[in-house]
């Protein structure tokens, strides 16, 4: 029984944590698929999502659902502003320049958040404070169902459902819609895309707006998992793991981001549970896995060149 707990509990923790990383990783993959850029600002899109929700509830007194929409809107606006003020002016520069510019956005955003919000912990409200009820009948308790002795809260269930729904939606978008195909086409051959009538600026704005939306949604959903957040939360707490998840899964693969997120969650959690004598065990394990995957399959587990 104890051995079962020792194996099963980290697995459940790893999967639910990994789902959270996967949500942000999908945003990273989307930007990479459409523009071949690693978006280091994605973490702060998530932070803005969390901040937007907090301001909506605590400052504006909005009900949760409206506050959550405000949080997602804040992330989306940040994505659109990043595209208009940073990405588009650098469109003709090497991709590395844009990559560094997104890192600069994160390093500027964090001090700004500190200046505005101050150095403190902000409470993050979950979507279901008292469990989930339908027509007055409680179907999920506040603590959530128990899986191998681990309580999986309604918030974590919501994250997993959101992750799957968004993943399916994006796979459909890139694989089945003209707009999705146009987005992929412009990422591979922008000049040819322009020649066939694709408006590159519109595509760029669409993808960065969508990345901001996903980042904002990530912040709205992830911050309540640990009950609180601070300025820079998305970059310091989520981005590195999400980035690793995206690379491990394959930077061009939406399902890969999902898989990568789960793997990252599992590796981190098992390392944390069993290698605690090693300082930075989870980080070391993570990078060992990353290097191993890149050596064996440089495009990532499910990645392709397209």
């Amino acid at each position, binding site marked *: 029984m*104890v051995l079962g*707990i020792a194996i099963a*509990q*980290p697995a459940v*923790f790893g999967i639910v*944590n990994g789902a*959270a*990383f996967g949500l942000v990783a999908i945003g990273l993959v989307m930007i990479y698929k459409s523009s*071949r*850029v*690693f978006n*280091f600002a994605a973490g702060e899109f998530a932070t803005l999502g969390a901040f937007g929700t907090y301001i909506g509830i605590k400052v504006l007194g909005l009900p949760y659902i409206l506050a959550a929409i405000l949080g997602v809107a804040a992330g989306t606006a940040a994505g659109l502003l990043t595209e208009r003020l940073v990405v588009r002016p650098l469109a003709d520069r090497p*991709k*590395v320049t844009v*990559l*560094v510019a997104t*890192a600069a956005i994160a390093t500027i955003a964090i001090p700004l958040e500190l200046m505005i919000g*101050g*150095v*403190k*912990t902000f*409470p993050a409200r979950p979507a279901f404070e008292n469990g989930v009820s339908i027509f007055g009948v409680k179907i999920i308790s506040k*603590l959530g169902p128990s899986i191998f*002795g*681990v*309580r999986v*809260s309604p918030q974590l269930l919501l994250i997993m459902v959101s992750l799957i729904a968004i993943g399916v939606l994006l796979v459909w978008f890139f694989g089945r819609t003209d707009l999705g195909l146009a987005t992929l086409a412009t990422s591979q051959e922008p000049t040819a895309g322009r020649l066939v009538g694709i408006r590159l600026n519109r595509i760029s704005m669409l993808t960065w707006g969508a990345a901001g939306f996903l980042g904002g949604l990530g912040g709205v959903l992830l911050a309540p*998992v*640990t*009950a*609180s957040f*601070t300025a820079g*939360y998305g*970059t*310091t*707490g*989520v981005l*590195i*793991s999400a*980035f*690793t998840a995206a*690379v491990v899964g394959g*930077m061009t693969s939406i399902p890969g981001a999902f898989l990568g997120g789960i793997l990252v*969650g599992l590796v*981190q*959690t098992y390392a*944390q*549970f069993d290698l*605690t*004598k*090693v*300082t*930075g*065990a*989870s*980080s070391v394990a993570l990078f060992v896995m*990353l290097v191993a995957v890149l050596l064996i399959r*440089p*495009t990532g587990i499910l990645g392709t*060149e397209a």
Partner: protein
Amino acid sequence: MKKPVVIALVLAGMILAACGQKAGVHLASGRNGQLVNPDTGEVIGGSGSAAGAGGDLSGAGGGAAAGGAAGGGTAAGGTSKAGAAKGAGGATGGGSSAAGGGGAGDTTGVTDSEIVVGLHAPVTGAAPFPTTSFQDGKDLYFNYLNSKGGINGRKVRVVFEDDGYNPSQAVSKCKKMVEQDHVFMLVGGGGTDQIVACSQYAATVGVPYLAEGVSEQGLNTLQNYFALSMTYKAQGSLLAQYMKNVLHVTKVGMLRGNTANFDDAHTGFLQAAAANGLQVVFDKSIDKNADAQTAFAAGGSVCSNATNKPEAVYPLIAPSIWIQIVAGASAQACNPIWSGVGLTEGLNTVGTAICGASPQTSGRAHFFSPFPGWNVTDQFDPAYRQAFAQQHPSSKIDDISWALWAAEKLLGSQLAAPGRNLTRQSFISAVNGHSFQTGIYPPVNYAGSRFGGTAVHVVKLNCGDTNSPYENEANFKTGF
């Protein structure tokens, strides 16, 4: 794809490298208690050799014994009692005597009119502490003391640095304060690894170093070091008594950061728990720089053994991580009593975050502290709030300034001990072997060792009090 991947990995690596403790940093500096002239590299004092002439530790020459009277203060001394202690005005050294000031000692940082003290603390990194609290509190007491005439006719100026809760950064800041600011002494405000690293650096350059009591290993041979409060190992013994006789629990746990500097605290608590008949049913360490998700998961494992859950858990880790641990435990319907040592877990900003993450922790978090609860400051020193109101009329007062006030009051009494002939050597000599009390910090007595703490205060979390979630519970306790 490969080129951007490599660049992105390098960037990610740089971000990670900027965080956390570098392995072995705490051992990288220092030569086990030897004081070294920074210019010549000459060893000027080693373990246990405090006598000598000229540049030795005890000082030579006929400085006058200073006793404990601090300049300008009311010299009333603190009449401490368990449960209530009347405060005093100025810093009052309880030390009975002091050795003579060194005639040829090192007077760096000391002029006829000024003493420069270097203070480092984890403003960032350990917890979301408000920066303004440190800015307002860093010299609150010494400004108050200066207005009353200072210490033996000298005013005290504080140089403050944020060590980022990172030992490498701490050593860098301490080095900067020694080499550029030319401070007389260094003071550590909190954070075990930072205190150990900086004190060992200070030993190599012959600078006195005082800090909250933390680890004993790595510090017990340093001639320049003095703990201002009980060490974690010593507090662990009291904590086991407290858990047994006050909290009335039998199954306990410990969750600590995986730094070697917590090893003696860990061993000490386990031994004390066994001696008090407590059953340790949970004992784990996690990365001292764990991210929020990892800490949350670790919290979820606290009650993983459903048939043998700990009733009380001793967290020895950065507050920011402890907050996530509590949240993770609560998410698994696991709400043990949290009880531990140190001072940062018991600060109100941490308590507020805990109450937000897990309101059910109210009344279930008790921590030892070197200063009494913030809700009873006037019982211990009414001058504190008056001084804050005078010096920072537009600022919000909080317990961080109280913590700094209390520590600096003890520090002031120690700085007064050598008298007017203040040198680094005379200071060390005047503190070593003597006792001091201020009525706020528990008395310190360096007769037996450099770990002078003798007692603790206890604070308890009450989420119903949003102004001061941590309330005073007990004072000057030497046993439970």
